[in-house]
Every structure is written in C-alpha cells, then in structure tokens.
C-alpha cells in the first residue's frame, strides 16, 4: 500500500447535495459560470490535490427545475483549467455510448498533450431515454449491450493512443465508475482508476479486493489500479457546527427534487406512497435488472435493507444526493474516517464531493488536507508533473486489441 492517499475534488456544479445551490451564502447560479470551475481548480492545486474531476452526461437533467445541473462540456472546461494551472490532474467524463471513438481518441490525446500529461478519461455509459433522444434513439440500449460497447470503445481508443505519438505521460489515464457486474469486469480489464460508491467499510474492502483480483486475472499488477470511493464532506470547525450544517442542507433540499430523484433511481412513482411507511418490498427489484444506474440503485437498496427507513426518512437520509457516503464532522473527525478506510484497504484515496461549492471546499482545503498532511497521509507538495505520476501509476501495456467494428448500439 502506498504511503500517501490520493484525493480528487469533484467539481459537481453547486455541490453534491440537492439543496446546495440554495445554501446560505451561495450564489445560486455560480456553477453556470466558467470561473466557478477554474477558481476551484486553482485552489485545489494550491492544496496539492491529485486531480479535479468533472462528471457529465450529454443531456439536460430532468431534475433541472429544482436543482442545478452540469452545464459546461468537460473537455473545454479542463483545457481552460490546464491553461491556468500547472500540476493538478484533470479528469473528465465522456460517454462511450454517444461519442465517436475516432474523434474522442484524438481530442483526448490532444487534451493530454496540451495539459502536459495531466488528463484522465472517466468512461461512462449513458442511461436514460432523454439522452438517447439527443442521438436519434427512442431509448438507451440495454445494460449489457452498453457495457459491451464501452469495453470495445475503450480498447479502440486506447489502441489509437498507443499508435499515436506519446503524450508527456504516455497516454491519458483511464478512469471508470460503475459497480455493476459488467462495470467491474470492464474495470478489471481496462481501468486504471475506479470511482466507487460504497457506504460501508467492509463492502468497500471487498470491492477493492475483488477489483484487484479481477485485474490480476487479466494479467495486470494490482497496484496498476487505484480505487477511489466517493466521499461527500460536511465539515465544520466543531462537531456541532458540522451537524448544524448538515441539518441546514436538509432544510434547503427542495422536496420536489428529492422525490423526483429517488423515484427515478428506483423506477417507482413515489407520489402514490405513504411518507410514513417504508417503500413496499414488492416495488423493489433486482439491481441487475435496473435499467438506469445500477450502482446508485444498489446503494439505495442496501440502505433500505439495512435501516428499513420510512420514505420520509429515506429521502432525508439521501438528502437528494447520488448515494455517495456522507461524512459529517470536524477536519480531525473526517481525517479519522479517511484514515480508517485507507488503512483498512477500503480505498487508495477518495473522490471528494464537498457539500456546497465553493464554500464547502474551505473545510477540505483549510482543515482536512492539512490534517492529513500532518499525519503523513498526504503529500505536502507535488513531486510529479503528470496525472500518472500523482497517482503512482506506471504506463502498462494496452489492453488486448479487438479490431472488429464497434457494435454500434441502435
């Protein structure tokens, strides 16, 4: 295990909570301006974080009425950040479902080149009929087909990178999220960084261990794969302050948003249910059959199985978030949690999602990072210039090259 852990910050528009944009002291539409992203990136670099990360989907979120959404295309944002920073890594999400692999291979290699070898590509498949309709389809392909295409897409892109001139880090880093069975197999074969969404330590240890075994099965060294669970942070200078902040986040959560989001995740119309009762079992089904994001479905389902919350409690528990683990406390308490997960083998680091942006970054940069540095768990300065360098990744051989034509999903 490496001595230092890794930290990204997910610049998730206004913050990871559904009510982040309404949090007191927040400019509600700041995340619609480019400066929001570049200023956060500069601060993250000053704190020596491994990377900034941008999620993305080629569609307007259906929840846009009540919650801010991602609204700037990631490669243009990251290229601008590249111009205004020098060391910090730049991880961007591009869909394997709705991009052309020839074009993507070129554009991402070029982004890696202009940034001096700091780019990582988070490969996702894109769910939902709304996104499908932006590309001429009535519905997205079924889950297994999406992942077959993703696997082939990644191999095609990486093979093209390998044929072209090397970038300063050889070629971009491949990042992948997705905890479905298909997603894990893909990760084991091609991913160098895996973003995960685990609520519990034991499961996270098992997940990381499973991924490393899968990777070994494909002839890879386990340390060629870095696992970074998502972590939503609510930090206060005292525990009481942190708890108050958490309560406040619940208070500003638009109810309409929370219900729409959860209902969408579970594929259930919540308006017919009683808030004071748990969701009837009969309405919940096997995650492997869930059409949308299986990862988040599983997380929510696990919560329900463990805690049997009423619908009202469940809505509040998730606070409209995407199902990532939420840690509330002082910088020291959060550092304790981070350290426990790191030393238990549950994580090589974390993909941090501050509760509110930009104000929630203060607790991370001014509190959590210095505490981790003090404990010898995080770098005090960059010693590498590339994303591979920051993550301790070498430059392995490319995954097996499959030259048959891509399965173009209809």
């Amino acid at each position, binding site marked *: 295990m490496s001595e230092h852990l890794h930290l990204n910050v997910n610049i998730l528009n206004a913050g990871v909570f559904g009510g982040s944009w309404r949090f007191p002291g927040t400019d509600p539409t700041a995340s619609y301006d*480019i400066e929001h992203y570049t200023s956060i990136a500069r601060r993250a670099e000053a704190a020596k974080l491994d990377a900034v990360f941008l999620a993305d989907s080629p569609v307007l979120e259906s929840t846009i009425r*009540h919650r801010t959404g991602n609204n700037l295309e990631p490669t*243009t944002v990251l290229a*601008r950040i*590249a111009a205004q920073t020098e060391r910090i890594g730049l991880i961007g999400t591009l869909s394997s479902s709705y991009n*052309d692999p020839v074009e993507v291979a070129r554009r991402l290699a070029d982004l890696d080149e202009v940034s001096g070898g700091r780019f990582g590509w988070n490969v996702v498949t894109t769910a939902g009929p709304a996104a499908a309709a932006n590309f*001429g389809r009535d519905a997205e392909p079924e889950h297994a087909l999406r992942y077959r295409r993703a696997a082939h897409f990644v191999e095609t892109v990486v093979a093209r990178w390998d044929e072209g001139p090397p970038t300063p880090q050889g070629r971009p880093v491949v990042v992948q999220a997705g905890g479905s069975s298909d997603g894990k197999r893909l990760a084991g074969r091609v991913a160098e960084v895996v973003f995960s969404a685990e609520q519990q330590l034991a499961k996270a240890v098992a997940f990381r261990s499973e991924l490393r075994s899968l990777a070994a099965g494909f002839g890879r060294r386990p340390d060629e794969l870095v696992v970074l669970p998502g972590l939503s942070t609510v930090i206060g200078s005292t525990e009481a302050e942190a708890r108050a902040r958490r309560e406040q986040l619940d208070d500003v959560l*638009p109810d309409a948003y929370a219900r729409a989001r959860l209902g969408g995740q579970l594929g259930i119309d919540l308006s017919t249910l009683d808030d004071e009762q748990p969701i009837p079992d009969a309405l919940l089904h096997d995650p492997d059959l869930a059409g949308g994001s299986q990862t988040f479905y599983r997380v929510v389902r696990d919560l329900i199985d463990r805690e049997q919350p009423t619908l009202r409690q469940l809505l509040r528990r998730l606070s409209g978030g995407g199902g990532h683990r939420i840690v509330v406390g002082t910088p020291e308490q959060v550092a304790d949690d981070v350290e426990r997960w790191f030393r238990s083998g549950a994580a090589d680091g974390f993909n941090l999602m501050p509760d509110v942006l930009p104000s929630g970054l203060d607790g991370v940069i001014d509190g959590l990072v210095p505490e981790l540095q003090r404990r010898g768990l995080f770098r005090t300065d960059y010693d590498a210039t590339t994303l591979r360098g920051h993550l301790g990744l070498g430059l392995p051989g490319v995954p097996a090259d499959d030259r048959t034509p891509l399965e*173009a999903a209809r």
Partner: protein
Amino acid sequence: MTDRPEGNAVSTPDLPVILELGVASRPPALTLAEASRLATVAADAGVIALRLRDTEPEPRQPHGGPLLDPSVVAAYLAGRESRLGYLVDVPTTHHAPYNVARRVLSLDRASAGRVGVVLRPGEGDEVSDAVAPAAPGSGSERWAEYATVLAGLWDSFPREALVGDVAGAVVVRDELLRPIRHAGRFYRVAGPIDGPSSLQGRPLLLAADADLRREHVAAHADAVILDVERDSATIPAADELLAALGRVGRERRDIRLVGRWSIEPQDLRDASALVRRVTERSTVAGLDAVVLAPRGAASVETTLREVVPALVPAAAPRSTPRSTLRDALRLAEVAA
C-alpha cells in the same frame, strides 16, 4: 501600437482582422506555447479572433504532424488570452451534432460570447449513422441539416430561463425551454441543450468551403470565408452568394463576407505591398472582414507586427469586455 507604414496612401477600410493558425504538438509547426504567446501579440495588434484549423490545407505544408483539436486549443488559449474571439474548424465527420453544439456553446459561454464554428462538410459519425433513416445525400445537404440542428440547440435554453430563485426553489424555468425534436434525413436530435444560450444570441456559424451549395450557405451562415485568388481581381463566389441571399429570405446585413489571404513568406518581404493588395481587393469586393493565414510558423509573428497594424484602423477599439464576436463583425442581433 505600431505606426502605419509611411506612404500608405490607400485609406484603411474598417476591416476586422482574423488570424488563422494551425497548432500542432511539435516544431517546426506552430506549437501551443508559441500560439499562446502570439495570441497576446495578436490581441495587442487588434486582431478580433483566431481561426484554428483542424487539418493542414495541403500536404506539402511543412509541419510537425497532425494539428491539435481546435476546440481543445481554443479553450486553452481562451484561458490565457481573453481579449480574442475564437473560431474553431469542426467537420461533420465523426462529430454528432449534439456534442458539437454543447462544446461550441461551452467555449462561447466561457469566452463572453466570442466564439464561432467553421463547420466543414463531410461524412457522418458512428453514433448518428447507426440510426440515420436514409444516409445517402450530399455533403452540402448534411451540412445544412447540421447547421439547422446547431442553431436550434443553441436557441433551446434561453438565458432568461436560468433564474436561480432560492426562495421559490426554482433553478431553471423549464417551461421556457424549447426542445428542437429535429427529425431529418441525417440526424434526429431532441434537445434541449444543457446550458443557457450565448451572450451573442448564438455562437457564430461560418462556411468556408467552395463546394457547399450557395443556397445552403446563404440560409445558414453568419459569415462565409472566401479564398482570395492571387491573380483574380474579383471574388465571383461573393457575388453568387449575395444573389442567393434574396432567394432564401435573408439580407446583406445578415451575413459577413470574409476574404481569406494565404500569406507566403515571400509576401512578407514587402509588407506594404501586401497591405495595399488586401485593402484594395477588400474594398472592390465589398468584403466585411479578412482572414490572414500565414504559411509557416515564422510568418505568423511577421504578419502580426507588419501587416495587421496597417489593416486595423488606428481608432479601432481593442476588444472591450462587452464586445461579442457578433458585435465585432457588425452582425445584426440574432432573431430569437
């Protein structure tokens, strides 16, 4: 600001100047670091925008390899030099229109409404082709449909829809959004786009290919880049295009004619003569702006220091923070 060369008896037309570059990863081509430095020189000299090529125009062009993706280069340069506008060449080939609409609009929103796309005709892309109901058709027809989709998407999320009403818990008034539900021969795109529209109404759409049908260009382009032939006194394509405007219900003020001069190193040995040629031909042809395309990395700086200052009127305001590219080219407001 550099003084105008003495003895320049031709009155300087009010000609906005665009500088065309091809940026690659290695010398002898123009590198990104050099382009970044020259962007500032260009802005100081009064250039209104950089046009970034996607491919080299001719095989014999000395260069260090393939060019870097224009949208990546533009986003990078805009992060360093905010006074310039940026025009990015994008072919229809390999690019689904929803993705391009987002990328160009994002660039534009990050650049205070100073971005345009030079849309190049070509083939389809892997994603769109899989569901294209009837793919065969001319490159020009595909181009025209693509332009229609871009414009529709760029209008689909009006700026006023983004309200950020904290008390009312409404971020976006979604009843104001306008999905385009485009179903054409080459593309089906629902929309809407995921971010608010441009400060300049829409990013600019430019045509630069002689093999596009006049009616298509006249109907869709905000500006057309016309190569100026070295030995010809006139630009026939300009007249044909203007004639086509009436047929598609647009007017002269709706489109900008931009003359493109390819500048060889030998042209720069007599910069004054070059300036005279450019100004005379532009006046005769009734051009609205010029693109200067220096051949070879070394020619770029010479062009900026010796040609541009003579073309840019002394009184021309340098791009002010409030000036969009549409304003700089004196295009009318976009009809909502």
